[in-house]
Every structure is written in C-alpha cells, then in structure tokens.
C-alpha cells in the first residue's frame, strides 16, 4: 500500500528536467552559441539565484525560447538584452549596467584598490625612513657601552 502511495506521489512530483532541452537548440551553431552566452547573463526571475541557462523553471525555458526567437529575428546581442530589460526591468540582468548609481558598484573595487595602494605605499615609505630600534642604541645603552669599553 505504502508503495502504491509512494509511486502515485512520485508521478505527481515534477521530474527533474534539464536547463537547456534538446528541442530548444537552434540549428545554426553560431546563433546557438550566442543564445547560450546571452542566457548566462540573464536571471531566471522566479528562481533564487540562477541564470536562465542553469534553471529548470518553466519561466526560464520561456525566456530561453524568447532569446532564441529574438536572435532568429535578427536582433543583435544588445538588442536582445534591451528587449528583455524593457519587459522585465534591470532585475533580469546578472551583470548590472553601469548607468546611474550602479557605477558605484563597478568603481568600488578599483577605487578601493587605489586607496589601499596609496595607504600601503605611505606605510612602506614610513617604515623605510623610520629608525630601526634594534640598530640604534638608546642614550642609556650608549652610556653602558662606554662604561663597558672603559673597563677593558
């Protein structure tokens, strides 16, 4: 009995399917390659954090087909992206644009690197110019040294 229930349940649950299904693939390998590259840049909107290229969701499949449809219609990569952004908002882009406030995201790394390198160079120059406490003797030590040498 349990087995029957289990089997029934198993049929109700969707079986795992691939991200890209064989029937989606375009005949033209160049276009297909472009479609795959574009898919990696686009977010599956209903998924947690997956591109439409990786996702098994129904919506991801629809978007993959849409991308291919646009490519077949002769759109450039940029036009396909623009089409999708217009429809779904910039949330669909896994590589955020550089427009407006997003430029901060892109500049954060390089700017921080510049600052860090500046501070680092300042520190190293400071260390270079500092007097080495191990090499320099304090006045007290000098006096002791003198005294010791006198004893000789």
């Amino acid at each position: 009995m349990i087995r029957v229930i289990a089997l029934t349940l198993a049929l109700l649950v969707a079986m795992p399917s691939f991200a890209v299904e064989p029937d989606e693939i375009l005949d033209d390998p160049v276009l297909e390659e472009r479609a795959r590259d574009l898919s990696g840049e686009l977010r599956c909107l209903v998924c947690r954090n997956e591109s439409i290229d990786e996702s098994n969701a129904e919506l991801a499949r629809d978007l993959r087909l849409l991308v291919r449809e646009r490519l077949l219609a002769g759109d450039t990569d940029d036009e396909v992206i623009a089409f999708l952004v217009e429809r779904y908002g910039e949330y669909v882009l896994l590589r955020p644009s550089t427009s407006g406030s997003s430029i901060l995201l892109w500049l954060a790394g390089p700017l921080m690197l510049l600052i860090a390198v500046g501070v680092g160079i300042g520190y190293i120059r400071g260390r270079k110019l500092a007097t080495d406490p191990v090499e320099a003797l304090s006045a007290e030590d000098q006096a002791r040294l003198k005294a010791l040498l006198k004893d000789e």
Partner: protein
Amino acid sequence: MIVELGHFALILALALAIVQMIIPLIGAHKGWASWMASADPTASAQFFLTAFSFAALTYAFVVSDFSLQLVVQNSHTDKPMLYKVTGVWGNHEGSLLLWVLILTLFGAMASWFGGNLPPSLKARVLAVQAAVTVAFLIFILVTSNPFTRLAVPPFNGEDLNPLLQDPGLAFHPPFLYLGYVGLSMSFSFAVAALIEGRVDAAWGRWVRPWTLAAWLFLTIGIALGSWWAYYELGWGGFWFWDPVENASFMPWLIAAALLHSAIVVEKREALKAWTILLAILAFGFSLIGAFIVRSGVLTSVHAFANDPERGVYLLAITGIFMGGALVLFSLRAGAMEAKGVFSTISRESALVANNILLAVSAFVIFVGTMWPLIAELIFDRKLSVGPPFFNLAFSPFMVLLAAILPIGAMLSWKRGRFTKQMKPLWGIFALSLAACAFLWAIQTGLSALGPVGLALSIWLVASALLDLWSRTGRGVLSHRLGRLRRLPRADWGKAVGHIGFGLTIFGVSMLMAYEYEDIRVAQIGESYTVGDYQIILADVQDVEGPNYLATVAEIDVAQGNYQIRLRPEKRVYPVAGMPTTEAGIDNGITRDVYVVIGDPQANGGWAVRTYIKPYANWIWLGAIIMSLGGVLSLSDRRFRVGAGAARAPAAKSGVPAE
C-alpha cells in the same frame, strides 16, 4: 528525558559562559591569579555540557524521536543512518548548536593548550570567547531552541532535504563551521590584545596557529561544497557566486590575508594594527555570513528557513561584537607602534601587497553581494548582481596576486635585492610565457583565460618548487636532498600551500576555457560522438532506493581501447517531494566525462547531456593541497615550542599549542 537533560545542559553552559565572560576579565585587570585561573575549568565544563547537549539531540535523531519538532521536520524512519546523524546539523537549530559546540571546543582548546600564554592574556582571550558563546547560547535558547517538543507527535517525519542526503554535503557544514568559528579565536586574541594594550612578536606567533587551523578547515569546507555542487546539481558548475558562497569566501580571503600579515608581526613586529583589524574583520565576515544565510535578506539557493526575528538578532550580535571591537581598536590602535624597518623591495612590502589584494578582493565581493540590498534601500532600484559581474570584478585580483606571489616569496626580509633574487625566476618566467604563447596558438577561440591560467599556474608551481630547492644551499645532490627533508615544516607549508593555489588556478581556468558540452535526444542503443568519445545510451531503468525512486540510465563511454559504463540517475524523494539528479562521472586526471540523463521524449528516446570537463578535479586537488600546506605549517616545531615561555615565567608545563 535525555532530551530534557540536553536542554538543561545547554542552559547550564550559558550560566557558566556568563561567569567566564566576567570573572577572568576582572581578575586580569586586578592581577588576581585565582580569578584569572577560573576561566580554565569553566571553559572545559562549557565544552562538555554543550557536547552532552549535542549528543542528546543526535540521540533523538538516531532513535527518530518524533516528539521533537526538529526531528519531525528533518528526519524520517526510512532515512539511512548516516543521514539521520548528519540531519542533526542539516537545519537551522541543529546547525546553530553545532556552531556553539565548536565555539566552546575552541575555548576549551585555548584553555588546554594555552599553557605558554601569559595568564592575563589567556584569561582575557577566554573571557572574550565566552562573551561570543553567551550571545549565541542566548540566540539558540530564545529564538531557535532545538529541543522544542510537540504535544501530539506525528507517526513519521517529513524527511531531510534530499539535496543534503549526500556524503559531500553531509560533512560540508562541520568543516565550514570549524573554519567560521575558528576565526572567533583570532577575534578573541585580537580583542584580548587590545584590552591588554600590547601586541608583540609572541602575540603574532600565538594567533597564527588558530588562524591557520580555521583557514584550512574553511578551505576544506568550501572545497567540499564546491565539489558537491559539481556532481550533484546536474551540469557541473563548481562556483556560483551565490550570496551564501560569497559569505564563506570573504572570511576565507580575509583569513588568508591575516595568515600572511601575522607572519610580519611575528618576524618583524610591523603591521600590528592592521593584523588586529584583519583578525576582527575575519570573524566579522563569519558573523555577516551567518546573518546572510539565516536571515533571508538576500535570496540564495542555500538559505535555511528564513526568519526576520532571527535576522534581527544576528544583526545585533554582529553589530555589538564588531562595533565594540572596532571602537576598542580605534582607541588602542595608535599605541601599537611598528618596530621593524624595511625597504621598499622586501618580503614585508610583498606581504603588504598580498594583503592589499586579498582584502580589496574580499571588499569587491562584499560590495557585490550587498549591492542588490543597497540599491533597493537607497537608490530604489531592483537589480541583480550575478556571476558575470564577479568573474569580471574579482578575477583580476587573483591574476595580480598570482603574478607577484613568486617574486614576493623569493625576496628576503628587510632588504631584498630584486635583480639578484629574481635571477633564478627568469627561467620559470620564460617557461610560463612560452606555455602561454603555445596554448594561445593551438587554441581555437580567442579567450585569454586558458593561456593566462596556464602561465600563472606554471609560474606559481615551478617557483614554489624552486624556492624549496634554493633553500638547500649548494653541494652534492644527496646532501641537498637531505637538507630538503630537514627544512622547517613552515617552509614546506608555504611551498605546498602556494602549489595548491597554482593547481586550483589551473583547474579553474582550464575548465572554464575548454569545457565541451553536448545536449541531444538519444535513442537506446544509438551511438554518437562527443569530442573524442563514443557515447552509447545502453539502457534506462526504474529503480527503487531506500527512500527514493530513481530512473537509472546506463551509458557506455569509449575512446580507443578505453571503455567505461556510467550510471547517471535522476531521483525523486516522495516524502520531501523533491527531485535530484545524480550525474554519471568518469573522473580522470586530464578530464572528467560527465553524463546526465534527462526526460523521456514524446517521440521516443531520452534527453542526454554529455560534458567533457578538462582538468576539473585539479580545482579540488589544489584546495586539498592548499589545506595540506596549512597542516604542514601547523606542525612546525616553533608552534609547539613555547614561544612566550620566557616572558611568562608562571606558565604551566608546556602543552603543545596547536
């Protein structure tokens, strides 16, 4: 009854932790030896109580005690015993208990092996560690009690998430937590040193083994997670730049920076304030990671059941510890004068560059991970930051790091002579360039990824070997081999760790540049070619597992005389109502053949995906070798010999500080 005792033990541990947080601190301030020494028995007792509590919860899972809410939600009588046990930490409450168990374990180890620490420093370290434990114990007991009973126990459980029913993932969390929580030890040492107001070479030597241990566990934990993703998620991705992965990667990068800067503190008494700051930040990123995973503010594939209340609490813990430590840092950092003097061309400068690259790369990941949140809160833009951004923004740092590493590793301390010390490296440099050019010439595409990756890995691995060899001086081969064996373990650790880094770079760049993929509908018995391989879908059958139903395909892969049968599966776990894929993988040194079975097609045949993944295993091999480098360095004699014994005459008999 056992369950109630476990709950009670946890409450007792909290009481002890509160005592340990206060008494030794007062003792250290007033110089009262007995008050300072009170931290030792409480640290041990806290660990044993938490361990008992953890054992009680494990017992409830093993005997499938369905009167416990947590067992009902995460277990099932049909589940294999291994996964009943690992189910203990496969959920929010249980994993938090594991977190606290490791926290108290590190506290107890600092007490057991810290005999060579000055008593006041040791007391303060244990007090800070206890403060962290208090925060997490209150968190567990108030918001996430694993021992909650049900009034009406159900007949059976709801089963563990099937993705977690896998050996790779079963042991991924404990290693990761050993790493995350191990960094609490570096944090405690940093805060204790700030309270003490003294950071010297000995401090650098004490804090390094703990950081090293945390870092190597983190390396293993991250590698296990990545390896699991590779064979389990069905298309062989190994890193997704998911917020939760980033949450583990940021502390790893900061810990790696800390490891290197602590060497400068130990050898040259410079970079002190910076090292303290890194120690604070490393644990800070662990706490932020816990917040990201458990609060659900960022959407991630890994998130535990998301609960805003827990999120607020974790944010408060992060805020209190980071805020407190950073305020203390700003008050005391000025007093930490550097002593060592060094010139621009020196090992010290190279390690400063290392720290800049590691810390800024962690910062880039941090900004990228938090940006969707920042953009929505401040700029009212709903956007995503995904792998294309991280690959572009993060990779240059690793390229630079790998490029300068061999030079820095060869430079001498204090004052290096660039021309002289670079001389042995020119040959390797030429070799790397030649390999790069060769690969560039024979590859079909124009991607720089493969050639650059190859050049960097040769540059790293060959120069690490040369570094070891050059340390054996001159003379007859047999003498040099003898000296090679007797080199300090730390030197071996350095070379092995850097070799591991090179191998991982090699694996990542080869896999990303030269992966080959084939997706098609295959009829049973039909043969087709993928790359150099002949593929035949021999058979597809339905099979019943202990707690799942599977479709198992038999796929023959052949190349010349070489032949192997792979059995990819797709499973459905009826209780949890979840499907999973089990790829069929033929692991090899130069490539993995990776096959996945898909859906039956309407007009006959099955969807089959085949990948040729060049040098995939080198990614994890590199990670294992990196952590092996950590183990070698940890076993160095100088960590066992009491470093500060002379400064602390009252120290007890030397127990190894590992």
